[in-house]
Structure formats: C-alpha cells, structure tokens
C-alpha cells in the first residue's frame, strides 16, 4: 500500500515542520510591537491560527470537488472522500475558531465580536456542521450521499460570497499580506508552519481514508461470509 506509506511520511514531516514553526515562533521570529512600542505577545498565535485557517479552506474545496465527482459517477468512494474532507475541514475550522477567540480576547478585550471576518467564518462553521446534521438524518445510503454532495457544493459556493459580502463593511480583522507587512523571519516561520499544517491535513485525510477503506473491505468480507 504505497498511499498509506505516504500518509505516514507526511504525518511525520508535518509534525516536524509544525514543531519547527513552534520553536521558531518563540525563539527566532522577532516580537511584533504595537504602534506605541509595547510588545504584542499575542501575535504569536498568528503563526498557528492562520495556517490552520488556510488549511480549512483548502480541505473544504475537496468537499465540493468530490461532491461533483460523486454526482457524475455515483460511486461510493467519492462520497467517502467528500465526507472525510469535510471531517478534516470541521476539525480545522474548530481549531481556527478556538485560537481566534483566544486572540480576540487579548487584542479586542472581548471573546467574540460580530466582526465581518468572524461572522463569515462562523457561517462557514455552521455550514460544515449542517453538512453532518444532514448526513445523520437521511436513512438511505445513496440518497444521503447525493444530498450531502449537493449541499457540500452549495456550501462551498456560498462561503466565498459570505466572505466578500462583509467586505463591503469595514473590517477590523488584521489583513496579513496587505503591504509586505511581515519581516523575513516572521514570514519564514509562518510559511514553515503553513506547509507543515497542509501536510498534516493531507495525512489526516489519508489516514481517515485508509480507515474507511478498511471498513469497506471488512464489510465486503462479512457479506462474503454470509452477512
């Protein structure tokens, strides 16, 4: 099983890179400072928060991608892939939310604010959760897969619209890459963390896929042995 092997390599690499990013964050990347010269220690959350958030978007794309593949072919494997991609999305989305809330508490002195970026990300979280609520309430396997695929595609189209519509209103959420704002060590730390997180995302996806494939094989064996 070549693919399973790759998953584990990615897992180790991802772990190494994210750990490296962690060390670089605290021992190498220079502290960010407020305009009045005070140290902004909470900015360190950024080095994990953003990679996880970016990964969540990327993985969510595969929900829609495999949703389309499923509708075209009606093959169960694509439904399984779409579902696992959404699972990993949910995992990353929740992590993004949690770290974001901690950062908000420090910088804005509140746990939550109905600020455009937060609002739209909250909507995306609801869409991902809705995907699973939907799955759980459909009995027939194939119908469940079809509905989930349709909703996954809709949700993926909807998420960016939500994002941009709030941009009509002023946002206080920091925009990282606005004007070359990062010093090189900060940028490198961030990139290492980002690559590590994407590798972890890939590894999670493949590991879960391996698990589901094993389940499917077990099911087939059981049927072969007479139910």
């Amino acid at each position, binding site marked *: 099983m070549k693919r399973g092997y790759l998953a584990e390599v990615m897992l180790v690499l991802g772990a190494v890179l994210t750990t490296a990013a*962690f060390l670089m964050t605290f021992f190498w990347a220079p502290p960010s400072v407020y305009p009045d010269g005070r*140290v902004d220690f909470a900015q*360190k959350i950024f080095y994990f928060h953003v990679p996880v958030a970016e990964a969540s978007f990327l993985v969510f794309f595969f929900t829609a991608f495999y949703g389309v593949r499923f509708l075209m072919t009606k093959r169960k494997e694509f439904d399984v892939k779409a579902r696992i991609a959404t699972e990993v999305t949910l995992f990353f989305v*929740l*992590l993004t939310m949690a770290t974001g809330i*901690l*950062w908000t508490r*420090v910088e804005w002195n509140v746990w939550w604010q109905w600020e455009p970026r937060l609002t739209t990300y909250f909507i995306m979280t609801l869409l991902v959760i809705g995907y699973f609520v939907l799955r759980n309430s459909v009995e027939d396997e194939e119908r469940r897969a079809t509905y989930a695929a349709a909703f996954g595609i809709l949700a993926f189209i909807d998420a960016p619209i939500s994002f941009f519509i709030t941009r009509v209103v002023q946002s206080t959420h920091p925009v990282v890459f606005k004007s070359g704002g990062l010093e090189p060590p900060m940028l490198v730390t961030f990139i290492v963390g980002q690559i590590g997180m994407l590798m972890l995302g890939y590894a999670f996806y493949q590991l879960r896929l391996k698990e589901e494939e*094993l389940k499917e094989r077990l099911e087939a064996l059981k049927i*072969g042995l007479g139910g």
Partner: protein
Amino acid sequence: MQDIYSQVIPQAPYVIWAYALIWVSLLGFVAMVFARLRRLDKQMQVLEEALKRREQQA
C-alpha cells in the same frame, strides 16, 4: 526588561492556551485514528481466520 515582562505576562496564558489546544487536538486526532485502525486490523484478522476455516471445511 521588567517592562517587557509586564506586557507579556498578562497575554501569555492566552497564547499558551491557544498552542496547547492545537497540540492536544492534533495529537488526539492522530491517536484516535490509529486506535481505530488497530481495532479494524484485529477485526480483519478474525474474519480472515474464519474465512480460512471455511475454506478448509469446504
């Protein structure tokens, strides 16, 4: 130095929480998947043995 600490210390718990949360969640995810994979492997063995027994009987 004193000055820097006075700024960092109130923010530190949140940063530590954020990182701890991520690490624990990532580890938890991996551990869970591996545990389930092991359990499935065990099931697979059971079924394969059953299959072999049946083949011998047949």
